[in-house]
């Protein structure tokens, strides 16, 4: 669908071990289009200044650009006027912010937090901290044999002690797209706030924060064709009032004296110290890039690639796809009989194919699936059906080596 799009990504001009780069690790981090690279470059070359307090020209311009990205991120995720976007360093920090600030105020001993078996460690460890510190209880909504959440069981998990539900938009292992609508409407019935780990959603799925009605949506710039070093947390404004601060430092205070401190309000309360200025500024180009392609086109493109790949791999009996979710984004994982995922990854690399082996920060999910590790394939806008052919061929080479 996106013809010649690889031309916009300079990395594809390079060879890997003399081969074309077939990059199938976008769920980990996406490659960067020239426009984003240029934006970083231009900011440092011509416009660099810290944002915030400066009144001189460079500082004013930098602050304006920084806030422009915030505005565009809001539009991008369909935020309404009661929604704010806080910049963090990555989705992990965004989720830690929610768990820490929410937990500090609203979680007491024996209170319950509902997660799912699909969660990335980033959406488990911060809640585990509350289990340790506060004596909270974590419950996991299970998945069925397809890798879909057993959504019918959610009602049963909820008790009067349930304080929050935190769930991923899309699994970074199985590609399962979770039925957020259903989850949020059940949660709302019980007045339970919902936090969504949108790290895999932001660049690959339809996101409408306002319509969804969730309370938090956490995501990362580097997985949406933007620079590393910047994450985001979209949240209903009221939580900024409810929450205490997260990190303390410059920029998040109103008054400081030796005796006491008054914190700033709004997003400022959560943005302590020098922010990833160049990163936020350049992120704006990533949003423009995605918007120009059109989210629906991206969804279609990646869906199509996934279908083609799954169809092709059916012909290879040794390849076992780990899950077959009903709604699936551009991610799937597999194992080859008798070959460990790390061996697969090493051998595929010799063919220029970049895939990752391991548990992909989802150890619980791998336990549930009774596998030790898996090889993950994840698509971005730059992938093509040719990439899939090379993948399938490389898998065969891999098998050949192991058959000697």
């Amino acid at each position, binding site marked *: 669908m996106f013809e010649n799009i690889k031309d916009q990504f300079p990395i594809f001009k390079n060879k890997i071990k003399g081969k074309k780069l077939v990059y199938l690790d976008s769920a980990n981090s996406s490659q960067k289009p020239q426009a984003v690279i240029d934006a970083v470059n231009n900011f440092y070359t011509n416009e660099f200044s810290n944002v915030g307090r400066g009144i001189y020209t460079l500082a*004013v311009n930098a*602050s*304006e650009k920084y806030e422009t990205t915030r505005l565009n991120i809001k539009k991008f995720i369909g935020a309404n006027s009661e929604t704010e976007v806080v910049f963090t360093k990555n989705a992990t920090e965004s989720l830690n912010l929610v768990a820490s600030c929410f937990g500090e105020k609203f979680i007491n001993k024996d209170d319950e937090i509902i997660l799912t078996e699909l969660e990335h460690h980033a959406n488990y460890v911060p809640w585990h901290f509350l289990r340790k510190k506060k004596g909270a209880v974590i419950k996991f909504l299970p998945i069925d044999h397809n890798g879909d959440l057993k959504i019918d069981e959610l009602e049963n998990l909820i008790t009067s002690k349930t304080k929050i539900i935190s769930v991923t938009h899309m699994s970074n292992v199985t590609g399962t797209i979770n039925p957020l609508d259903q989850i949020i409407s059940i949660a709302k019935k019980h007045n339970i706030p919902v936090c969504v780990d949108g790290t895999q959603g932001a660049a690959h799925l339809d996101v409408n924060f306002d319509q969804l009605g969730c309370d938090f949506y956490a995501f990362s710039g580097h997985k949406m064709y933007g620079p590393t070093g910047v994450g985001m947390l979209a949240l209903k404004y009221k939580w900024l009032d409810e929450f205490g601060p997260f990190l303390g430092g410059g920029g998040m205070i*109103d008054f400081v004296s030796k005796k006491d401190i008054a914190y700033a309000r*709004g997003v400022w309360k959560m943005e302590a110290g020098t922010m990833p200025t160049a990163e936020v500024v350049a992120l704006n180009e990533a949003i423009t890039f995605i918007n120009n392609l059109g989210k629906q086109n991206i969804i279609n493109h990646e869906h199509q690639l996934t279908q083609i790949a799954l169809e092709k791999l059916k012909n290879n009996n040794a390849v076992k796809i780990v899950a077959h979710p009903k709604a699936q984004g551009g991610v799937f994982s597999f194992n080859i009989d008798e070959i460990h995922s790390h061996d697969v990854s090493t051998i595929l690399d010799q063919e220029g194919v970049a895939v990752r082996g391991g548990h992909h920060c989802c150890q619980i999910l791998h336990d549930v699936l009774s596998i030790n590790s898996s090889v993950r394939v994840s698509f971005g806008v730059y992938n093509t059906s040719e990439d899939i052919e090379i993948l399938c061929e490389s898998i065969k080479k891999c098998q050949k080596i192991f058959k000697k």
Partner: protein
Amino acid sequence: MNTKDLYQDLILDHATNPKNKIKLNYYNKDTEGFNRLCGDSVHIFVHSKNNIIDDISFLGNGCAICIASTSVMTQALKGKSEKDAFTLINYFLDLMKKQNNDEHLKIDNVEYNALNAFKSIVNFPMRINCATLSWITAEATIRNKNKQINIEDYK
């Protein structure tokens, strides 16, 4: 855009010799306004009777723009009906948003010139809050709304 456009004589006069910079002996409303970014702070005192602003004054600390704007504001609002005061406040705030809208405005030339002396601040975006702080604080005072105001909340 030249610095002199911003620091006009009228502004510098008010900054160095602000009017009504004193705490009223009798007041029935007061609000403190604060600009976190600059550290500017103004405390507005109002004595109002039968919806007329009998008297208004301020104490405060801040840059030339902030002090001048506060001084001009107290002069402009003193003696006005609360309704006319709100119209004037809105006019000034609109001016700071580059939305020049002087229909329905019932002010004399002197007042008009005083307010419009601040017009070029729109070209210095980081300084706009310096000019609007006392106006926003005055509105809250007259409405008897908040005891404390943080200008960053008024975006």
